[in-house]
């Protein structure tokens, strides 16, 4: 599986034309990947050396669980970003699918209620996709409208948080398989299957190609509209699943949850080198982006940094990471 889905291979030349040392393994330039791994190792090492809490099983489990929401949303977002679009509605979908699931638990078997929750995400994604693909509306505008509409619907469904009493409701979000949370395994499975989808299936290749040049793809006999709609549907499904898992983990579904989650998802893609113009991005690097974001959050929490300062620091770190990447990309 090639990691780089598309786009010029990274070269190691800074903006001023100076050469950086390269890491070439088996003819492939792995400098950027190596820098990424180094960053993550550094974050982990700093955390482990400076905090006695970081390496405790409780914190690590917590970390793995926190990763799930951002991870699922980031993968869905990546698929949409690859087509050259954006999905701002995912945070609201998280709230809606969570609260609907929690509400339905009273009357339906839990797996069915959860399936309905995920299905609402698929439905919203499909509507976004059809509006973008069939009617040619701007993705930013469509999903911005969806963001506020779906948030409103979540409050219409229930103004107050819903906390199901059946303990089975908590299983999906809190069960462990050995040391690892089940929800984390689900997220990893989505990334793995998603990576294969994007690199090795005709539909996945079509989605990547559409972001590169939709007209070329259309003339190659590929149904562009259907694939764009599919991308938003995938994002909606991921958001629906994330909402259900989040409600189950917290044990309570709130209509106000998930505000600005879309921003973390976009940030993870961008840190992973995805181009917001479409056509370039990778699942592995996006996963790396998720790790970076979640580690930073966890670390700042452990240090007891005030949450507003956390936001400031996160913003600065995102800029720094992207600057490093930019200097490592070939200029065309």
């Amino acid at each position, binding site marked *: 599986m090639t990691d780089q889905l598309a786009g*010029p291979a990274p070269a190691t030349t800074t903006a001023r034309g100076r050469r950086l040392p390269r890491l070439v393994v088996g003819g492939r330039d792995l400098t950027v990947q190596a820098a990424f791994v180094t960053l993550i190792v550094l974050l982990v090492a700093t955390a482990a050396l400076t905090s006695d809490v970081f390496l405790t099983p409780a914190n690590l489990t917590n970390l793995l669980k926190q990763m799930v929401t951002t991870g699922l949303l980031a993968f869905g977002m990546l698929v949409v970003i690859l087509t050259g679009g954006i999905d701002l509605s995912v945070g609201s979908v998280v709230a809606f699918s969570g609260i609907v699931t929690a509400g339905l638990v009273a009357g339906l078997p839990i797996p069915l209620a959860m399936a309905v929750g995920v299905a609402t995400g698929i439905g919203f994604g499909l509507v976004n996709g059809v509006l973008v693909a069939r009617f040619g509306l701007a993705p930013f505008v469509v999903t911005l409208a969806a963001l506020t509409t779906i948030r409103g619907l979540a409050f219409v469904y229930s103004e107050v948080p819903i906390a199901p009493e059946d303990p089975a409701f908590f299983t999906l979000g809190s069960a462990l398989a050995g040391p690892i949370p089940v929800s984390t395994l689900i997220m990893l499975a989505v990334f793995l299957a998603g990576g294969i989808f994007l690199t090795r*299936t005709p539909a996945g290749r079509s989605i990547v*190609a559409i972001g590169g*040049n939709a007209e*070329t*793809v*259309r*003339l*190659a006999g590929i149904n562009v509209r259907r694939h764009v709609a599919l991308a938003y549907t995938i994002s909606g499904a991921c958001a629906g699943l994330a909402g259900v898992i989040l409600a189950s983990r917290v044990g309570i579904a709130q209509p106000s949850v998930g505000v600005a989650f879309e921003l973390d998802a976009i940030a993870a893609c961008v840190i992973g080198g995805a181009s917001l113009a479409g056509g370039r991005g990778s699942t592995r690097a996006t996963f790396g982006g998720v790790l970076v974001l979640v580690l930073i959050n966890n670390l700042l929490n452990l240090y007891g940094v005030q949450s507003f300062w956390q936001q400031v620091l996160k913003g600065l770190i995102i800029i720094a990471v992207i600057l490093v990447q930019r200097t490592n990309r070939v200029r065309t």
Partner: protein
Amino acid sequence: MILELRGVRKDYAGVQVLHGVDLVGRRGEVLAVVGANGAGKSTLIKILAGAQPMSEGEMRMDGERVEMRSPHDAHARGIRTVYQEMSLVPGLSVTENLLMGGFPRRRGGLIDWPAAHARARELLESIGFGAIDPRTIAGRLSVARQQMVEIAKALVDEPRVLVLDEPSAVLAGTDLEALFALIRRLRDRGVLVVYVSHRLAEVLELADSIVVIKDGRVIGSTEPSRTSENELIGLMAGRRLEQIYPARRADRGEPALHVSGLSRGGEFEDVSFTLHAGEIVGLFGLVGSGRSELALCVFGAEPASAGEVRVAGGPGGFRTPGQAIAAGLALVTEDRKGSGLVLGMTVADNIMLATLRATTRGPLIDFGRRRRKVAEMVERLDIRPAHCASMTTLHLSGGNQQKAVLAKWLLTGPRVLILDEPTRGVDMATRVEIYRMIDDLAREGLSVLLISSDLTEVLGATDRVLVMNQGRITGEARSDAVTEDEVLTYAIGRTA
């Protein structure tokens, strides 16, 4: 002043494009660089312009080594480059485009517009382009005029070296003469003009010395008085070219495609023709005659308002390109970058784009089979460099990009191949290859529609020619039984 390049090497992501190029240019000289597509001309230009760093080698001016890390460094050394692609801001006036680096100011810092326009006018007049009004919005000028503004912009701060990349591609007639006169004047003023072109007649007329590059190496340097067009073509291609167009024998088979009464509001009307297996049909028309629109409509990419397209013995009435492809049609559009390629994707991805499902095993693409198919096409069409499968198409030369597009369509197993201006911007040596390829395909039984605005090509490479004028087919003739004048007469619309 002497500009020297020594042992310049360049690789993109590990693929060598330049293999040690040496080049010497002197003040007051027109130095022509010629070479086939993919020879490395564009890369060489980018290195001179500071837009790409060289991987190895050095550049010296007056014997002193210069480091070029950005276009800014090149400007500071007095090296200016005019690319084929326009760099004007289309929404701004000519004056603003020309003086972007520094406007005359009034006291208080506001721009002194009368002075700015006067300065721009003076500049345009001084280089013989006085016909251009500096107040015009750049995007409203003809492409030829825009090209002249582009050149004027490069001359604003009196460069010592001027690099021109195919400057004549969009110029004709008096504009071309104005350009040549300007180049000669610049040379006489002591500027080194590096002139990159594949129009060899121009090069022979204009240059003081000629450097031929091929496959990233300098393979010859000469002077116009000591060489000929044929010799240059031979050097560029690495062999002698006896004949540009293959000898066609009109060996036409069964009908392959019927187009009857096809119309589309405002673009073309009541177009009917039949293509036969094994036949190459030219479609000639001036720009704006509706040729490309017709091609898109036949291919199902744009809806028709009336009429029918039908593949012989098969379905018709295509409403999507997918249906047309399934029926055996393929379309190489005139705009490689805009609708032929996904530039950011690899050659392999591009070649397989129209046949994504051809290499699947179960739901997944079988990478082994895919690699073999791609390697087969790269070899068959001689796409260079030979190990380009994992290179992005962005880094291929124009001619090789065109071959990649063609490879994509050949994999669909077409019965009818529509080629819209397949040789635009392609050098003579690669053109000859493309003509030979088209001929081979026709011999294998393909039916080819060659759309072109190159009169020589449309008659030389085809069996039969259709002429289009203002959306209608106004003439049809056997290519060997008609003169260029007759075809032009049909195309312009006077009744012959």
